[in-house]
């Protein structure tokens, strides 16, 4: 999928993706010549059609997680389906190369349904590790959600 600025005859560049949480998606593209932006807005059905393929408009922002589609899309998953380590609290020694979580971040993560929690935890931890962020806070989580297009998580 490409967008063309007809006035400039230039291919527009992907700028950002947003998932407002109502099942819709907004993908913003900007013209590198004139700076004009357009947003491609998809309705819930169109968004779901793309999601059901396990692909992302704008490209993947994080590596594909094991069972990513299944864990993201299954509504009837069992609570204890996955055995995954809890996030390391700030009071604990950080595992090598992995960040720790402050209490508020751990509390917010705990509200994520357990069927997908481990996957979401891993995405945030990868995001932090890649940016050499040692402590995951709710601010870090908010930033990751914006930058990675994880509004649904």
């Amino acid at each position, binding site marked *: 999928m490409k967008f063309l600025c007809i006035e400039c005859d230039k291919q527009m560049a992907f700028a950002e993706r947003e998932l407002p949480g109502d099942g819709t998606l907004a993908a913003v593209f900007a013209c590198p010549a004139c700076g004009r932006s357009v947003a491609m807005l998809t309705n819930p*059905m169109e968004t779901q059609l793309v999601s059901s393929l396990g692909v992302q408009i*704008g490209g993947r922002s994080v590596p594909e997680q094991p069972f990513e589609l299944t864990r993201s899309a299954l509504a009837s998953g069992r609570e204890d389906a996955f055995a995954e380590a809890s996030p390391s609290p700030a009071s604990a020694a950080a595992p090598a190369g992995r960040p720790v979580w402050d209490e508020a971040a751990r509390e917010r993560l705990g509200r994520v349904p357990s069927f997908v929690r481990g996957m979401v935890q891993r995405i945030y931890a990868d995001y932090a590790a890649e940016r050499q962020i040692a402590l995951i806070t709710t601010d870090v989580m908010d930033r990751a959600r914006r930058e990675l297009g994880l509004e649904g998580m």
Partner: protein
Amino acid sequence: MSEDPSTPRAAASRRVRGYSELTGDDRSNLLGQVTAQHERVAARLASVRHVVAVVSGKGGVGKSLVSAGLATALARAGREVGLLDADLHGPTAARMLGVRAAGLVVGEREVEPKRSAAGVRVMSSDLLLAEAAPLAWREPGRDGFVWRGTLAAGMLREFLGDVAWGSLDLLLVDMPPGSERLDTLAGLVPRLRGVVVVTIPSSASYRAVKRAVEAARAGGIPIVGVVENMAGYRCADCSSHGPLFEGDAGDRLVRETGAPLLARVPFDPAVQARIDAGDASLAAEALAPAAEALAQGLERSEARVEAQP
């Protein structure tokens, strides 16, 4: 004198360039993302010698029992075997092999399959679904029927590509009743070696299973064996055999496909009771000769392919 580019006539004559004329990066690259998914499956299955689907045209013929019995028999004979339960809506393999306990271990890039007592590596939606819960997807609105099939295909793809199957002699795929999911499997697995057809003797089963056979043929997938299940009844008290269904579906399918009859298995309440309790050992005993015949047939055909110039 050149025309003013802002005039309606100039605008009408201006041609918008097409997708392939734009040389800039397509960051979405949806086709590339789908291709990467398929490459992930291919890489995962590169260490699996044979992938074989177990199919029937209808439910209730004991296909899952046959799958669990074949897999367990082969594992007990020392082969490395996986069983992928592709019956996503009616999964039974995990329970039959006694691995329904919680807690799939997730690694960096893969999910560890469960291992049965005999060593069969198992993946099933039964390991993911809440007790007695149907397979249900998060749906933002109506018209879920449009994408449910795609989601199920995606789940099957992840079972193939994200599970740490390791090196296997055989990955058996227990298919749902019917034949439509066989196309999906064939599209995902680079080298689907063939299908084992399970039927019961009745003519109704023959007709339904024949449709699955024709679907496999249409997809160029060989029939590598026929199992006639519930071929009579074995008395639990005296071990005598009696008739259960009229018909000769197994023989007819063998004649028409040229595939070997791997087994004719009587219904045995003891086998059923044990496997319902998560113990496939009796089913494995009943199907051991069939499992060995299947394995040897696959090895012979592999040798023939390798011997070809």
